[in-house]
């Protein structure tokens, strides 16, 4: 197996773990964690395709991933703030308890 394939398999595994965690956990923080895992799986793909792709010298992959990490950090900050706000409101971080926003 080429290193690229190994990277892709790892990122696929990471993505699946994240997806399962996001879909099955009822704790909002665990769902956020799952989403972060999926984002990081995408980051691994970026790096892998850059590193083993046609132009490994130009820093595109790294820069892309740095942006992605910054976005992920901002997303985590906003997400956790929302979780804290929900917790203050309903004394629970279970997603099933926060269903007021419906049509």
């Amino acid at each position, binding site marked *: 197996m080429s290193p690229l394939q190994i990277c892709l398999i790892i990122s696929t595994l990471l993505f699946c773990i994240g997806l399962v965690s996001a879909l099955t956990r009822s704790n909002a923080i665990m769902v956020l964690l799952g989403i972060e895992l999926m984002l990081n799986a995408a980051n691994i793909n970026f790096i892998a395709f850059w590193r083993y792709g046609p132009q490994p010298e130009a820093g595109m992959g*790294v*820069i892309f991933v740095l942006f992605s990490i910054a976005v992920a950090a901002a997303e985590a900050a906003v997400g956790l703030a929302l979780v804290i706000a929900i917790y203050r409101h309903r004394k629970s971080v279970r997603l099933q308890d926060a*269903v007021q926003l419906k049509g």
Partner: protein
Amino acid sequence: MTLSAQFLWLIPALPLAAAGIGALTPRSGRKTAAGAAILSLLGAFVLSCFALNGALADPTMHATYNFNWFDLGATSLRLGFLLDPLTAFMCVMVTFVGLLIFIFSTGYMKEDANSTRFFCFLSLFAAAMLGLLVANSLLLLFICWELVGLASYLLIGFWFHKPSAAAAAKKAFITTRIGDLGLLLGILWLQHAGGTLLFYDGGNGALESSVLASLAGQTVAGGLALSTAIGLLIFCGAIGKSGQFPLHVWLPDAMEGPTPVSALIHAATMVAAGVFLIARVFPLMSADLALTTVPVHALTVVAFIGAITALLGASIAVAQNDIKRILAFSTVSQLGYMMLAIGVGSWVAAIFHLLTHAFFKALLFLGAGSVIHAAHHEQDIRSLGGLRGPMRVTFATFAVGMMALAGVPFLFSGFWSKEAILHAAHLWDVSHLPFYIGLVAVVLTAFYSTRLVAETFFGRPRSPAAEHAHENSAAMTGPLVLLAVCAVLLGFIGTPAFPWLQAKLLGQTEIHGHSLFDGAGLMITSIVLVALGIGAGWAIYGRRPRANATARDPLEARAPRLFAALSNRLGFDEFYASTVFRLNDGLAIVSDRLDRHVWDGAVRFLALLGVFTGQVNRDTDEQGLNAGFTAASEKLRDAGKFYSQRQSGEAHGYLRTLAFGFVIVLLLVILGGAR
């Protein structure tokens, strides 16, 4: 056996692996976590000894192993490992003291349900600290520096269910972060101006003559040399980490953590990282010394900050009552001494004091831990007393540590290293003020350490907890004895007659000792001062022991205002609360007002505009266009109803739909578009 620079990464890697094992061990497996931590540190200690062996074979060499981390366009970021006597001595000290403290912790944390987590954090700390020591790049050093800060935060807040511990952890983290901002700026500036962050790189490193000459040759704002500016920014990081004035406020509060943590991190190793950093970049700090036109030299600032810190810490320690806080302020003061030594140009004296201090301060903290453990977490020296009888080993070793701290002549290591610092300060030609401040701090140090021992171990027990105290298990007393032996013996590797350590650190192959009588005047002065301090301490606290836990302190009776100011730590916390915090609160209020009134007003105005256009639209609509749309709107409303039922409000439903859609897109791509 020797260890080459190429394999130096093994030293931090071992504890890092132990931290990984600790993180994966379930809560019940504390023996696994503790065993992994102790074994890994033992391995690191052996490797460090090999490294020291290699470094001492050729002390003039800076053996490096550099590698490329990644390239960004034309710039490449390189990291590396460095092996020289400074690194090797520090590694041996950290691993040895760390090992003893790990062993002590197995006894101290026996009853704690979370000791698996504790050993995981301790190993993480050891890994980060060792990584910091072996780094040959300011960037790698900075990464480990921050990891050390993280581990310190986690360990101070180890008992996070106590609000005071959680607050102390936050305070430590944020206060050191202020200094780290300066360090980061210094790193960025150095990369920009010098083009490299490697310390030694075969002539092109940031600490080698060609880069230093170019840095010292440029001037920046205010006539400062560029190297001075960068050096002072780097020194900011050291001020934060090493608890120097004015960022020392976090260190005493950090004593909320478990006592072994205080011993390892906040006395022996982490706080010394700042001193190590400045000693490491000493060529950069001293690059401006040859210039006569600059307004200030970087090292002058270091010397004065160090002297102020030494005096401040020692005087506040006199009026504290918590056994760990006394030791904490004593650490602040001793770190000030080390900075003072670097400032006056003798970084080897600073490292000598760092090494001896690490041993005797770890000994004192572990002794305090032993007392606290035996007295059921009673930390107030007013409520202790009379522990000399029931806790013989602890008393004997604590007394050795105290005498080393006070600088009792000839036999104890602290005397020789403090003497080296005072000697260097005496020879400094810029100003004699730091030297005199250092002499005052000598008296105060001897005084408060005598007070500590007299109050804790002599007299009668003043609380039920102290009455029922008994000696601890061998896991706790064993490390005490070993540390006490080191606290005595370590002084003899750097006496003026045979300065082996200094010669090796400076890379000299021959050792030029001189007679003990060369600096006899200075030595006699400091012996007299130490005797004065101990005598005063014994006269006040030893001869007539405190009658009960609530009796007033003799000093408090004599100078109540001064004592109150000192025991209130000279009001630094209140000062910061009334300035920095209030400024922060003010900014928050201003932003809040801006948000509520200015931005909100703009949004309201836009909304009004929207309402107005809506009104106009409705009028035209109702008057003109109402006819044919009723049927269409019925349909739209039905569709809306349908979709609004899909919007159930459950986040999982949305996520599931997203995932389902993703799978369909994936299938479409795989089946259709992949060719």
